[in-house]
């Protein structure tokens, strides 16, 4: 949209590129296309969830329940698969998305209708969703041999050389790129976060937009729930424990402002990829995996400090000489 976005994203992209090149200089195997595809595939769930989280953060909310939502949906579809092994995968996917969306909608309703702060709502639903998994599963695992081959096979089925899991992420990115830039909903999401007061004047219902954002985030968490459980071929209470923070971290690194209104699809995707590359590179470069936590923590701090600097308001523009020179109307 503006040169600012470009700089922020190009910078992150260059950082990722530099990182990859650095690794490649010592371990050329890392940049083999097959391995890069692997890294991407591994990062796909994070990309999908980060996009959902981005929408929520843009509307000045936060969704801490995504990982719990993912786990609950994953467990539910796994149990459905065990009970009804013949159920076709498209129906399973539809159930997962719908379940996730319903959970997201519950968050959204509490925020919209009862005006409870999002962080409180999703902190609460996070623990509730996790607890429900325990209740429905009785704490038991659903293991790979109990799942049908079609169920576990779908995300890894290859199509044009990439597994369906990767394609799901690509499709989500494309849909989001279009939604955020070319649909009224996308623009309202930016507007609501950027200036909720003004949004009301333009006929945008702030609460409703936040509700939709939570629902979208929930639906994506549901989808990821199925993909996750099918890919790792196991479902249990704790899957993706703490993943919500990684998702938020991806958004923050990608330059999504926690204060709402500022961010881009490209940023969120790059933020997720950055974390994915770091995570996959550590074992390869022989850095103890114990470094990973500290590295992603530092990345978050550097990213916010950098983004805040780039976006810092220099004050109101009153002096005529300070107004940005702008091109004449074409």
């Amino acid at each position, binding site marked *: 949209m503006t040169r600012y976005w470009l700089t922020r994203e190009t910078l992150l992209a260059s950082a990722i590129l530099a990182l990859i090149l650095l690794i490649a200089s010592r371990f050329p195997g890392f940049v083999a296309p097959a391995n890069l595809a692997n890294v991407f595939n591994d990062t796909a769930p994070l990309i999908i969830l980060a996009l959902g989280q981005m929408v929520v953060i843009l509307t000045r909310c936060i969704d801490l329940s995504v990982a719990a939502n993912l786990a609950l949906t994953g467990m539910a579809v796994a149990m459905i698969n065990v009970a009804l092994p013949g159920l076709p995968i498209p129906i399973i996917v539809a159930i997962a998305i719908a379940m996730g969306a319903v959970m997201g909608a519950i968050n959204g309703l509490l925020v919209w209708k009862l005006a409870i702060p999002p962080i409180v709502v999703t902190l609460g639903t996070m623990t509730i969703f996790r*607890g429900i998994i325990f209740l429905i599963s009785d704490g038991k695992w659903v293991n790979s041999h109990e799942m049908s081959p079609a169920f576990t096979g779908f995300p890894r089925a290859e199509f044009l050389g990439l597994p369906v899991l990767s394609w799901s992420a690509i499709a989500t990115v494309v849909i989001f790129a279009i939604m955020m830039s070319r649909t009224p909903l996308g623009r309202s999401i930016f507007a609501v976060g950027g200036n909720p007061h003004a949004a009301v004047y333009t006929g945008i219902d702030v609460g409703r937009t936040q509700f939709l954002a939570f629902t979208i985030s929930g639906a994506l968490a549901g989808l990821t729930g199925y993909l996750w459980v099918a890919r790792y071929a196991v479902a249990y209470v704790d899957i993706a424990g703490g993943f919500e923070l990684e998702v938020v971290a991806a958004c923050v690194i990608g330059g999504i402002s926690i*204060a709402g209104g500022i961010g881009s699809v490209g940023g969120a995707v790059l933020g997720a990829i950055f974390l994915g590359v770091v995570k996959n590179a550590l074992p390869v470069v022989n850095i103890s995996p114990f470094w990973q936590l500290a590295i992603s923590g530092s990345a978050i*701090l550097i990213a916010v400090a950098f983004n805040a600097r780039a976006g810092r308001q220099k004050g109101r523009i009153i002096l005529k000489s300070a107004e940005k020179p702008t091109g004449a109307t074409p």
Partner: protein
Amino acid sequence: MTEASVQSRHVPDRLNSRAHRILRSWEALLLAVAIAIFIVNSFASPYFLNAWNLSDATFNFTEKAMIAFAMALLIISGEIDLSVASIIALASTAMGFALQYGAGTPELVVIGLTVGLLCGAFNAFFVTILGLPSIVVTIGTMSLFRGISFIILGDDAYRGYPASFSWFGQGYIYWVFTVEMLLFVIIAVIYGVVLHKTNFGRAVYAIGNNPTGALFSGIRVQRVKFILFLLTGLMSGIAAVCLTSRLGSTRPSIATGMELEVVTMVVLGGVNILGGSGSIPGIVIAAFVMGLVTFGLGLLNVPGIVMSIFIGLLLIGVIALPRLWAMAAARRAK
């Protein structure tokens, strides 16, 4: 103006009596909940009403509550610190590290508290000097602090703390009263006084209600916030001493997930997560409520995760129910 001053009327100091204000408060509601839980628990399990058991139960909340007091002030001022559990990990790791070089109990305590303070200062630097949002900064330091523990300790553990060190987390002052309980009471009183009886506490409320207005009123907003982050770090350091002493060992995964329980306690205690209101008595009662719920359910051997459903419902319920009630009342009035 002269005529105006002639007409000027007497404005009373207060309208409602103290008793009236206390009875209608959140704390009163919460206290009722706590008492109800206490009664239900005593009927549900024959083991509940036992001094030693109740004493053991306090370990479920004392360390969290120590942090919760400082966190309450931070949240009232409109900020948050999600890195507290990681500060515990780093402080504990530092103590264990010092232990390898022969540090004794006093040195260990000093190191734990100092690391806590340093971590608090680190957070405060990003939030107050660079002006970054605290939720993001502390999500970052949450990974960073614990990450450093992992780098130092890897898959190892520090053990062999001196016997005198175990006093903090395992010692008793008198009969069933533990050292941690004493610390809890002292810290509660100090924070109660600071928040409710000092100029500093007043500034915290003013900042939380309207940071711009507070700044325009001559309050040194950033300085107050800096101190609040320091205090939160210090409390995490104290909690690290207690927890390390109680466990008798340090691993980098210590206190995982505790930050969310602390925040839950603070919100349950009636602190507005958006800042501006809340009280220390509220936190004290909320600590007991959470301790009683988990202990009561534990006695019935209910798995921890099912307890967390109760806590989650409590968290949303205590905020949602009054609002639903008000909405229903408004509808009926129409």
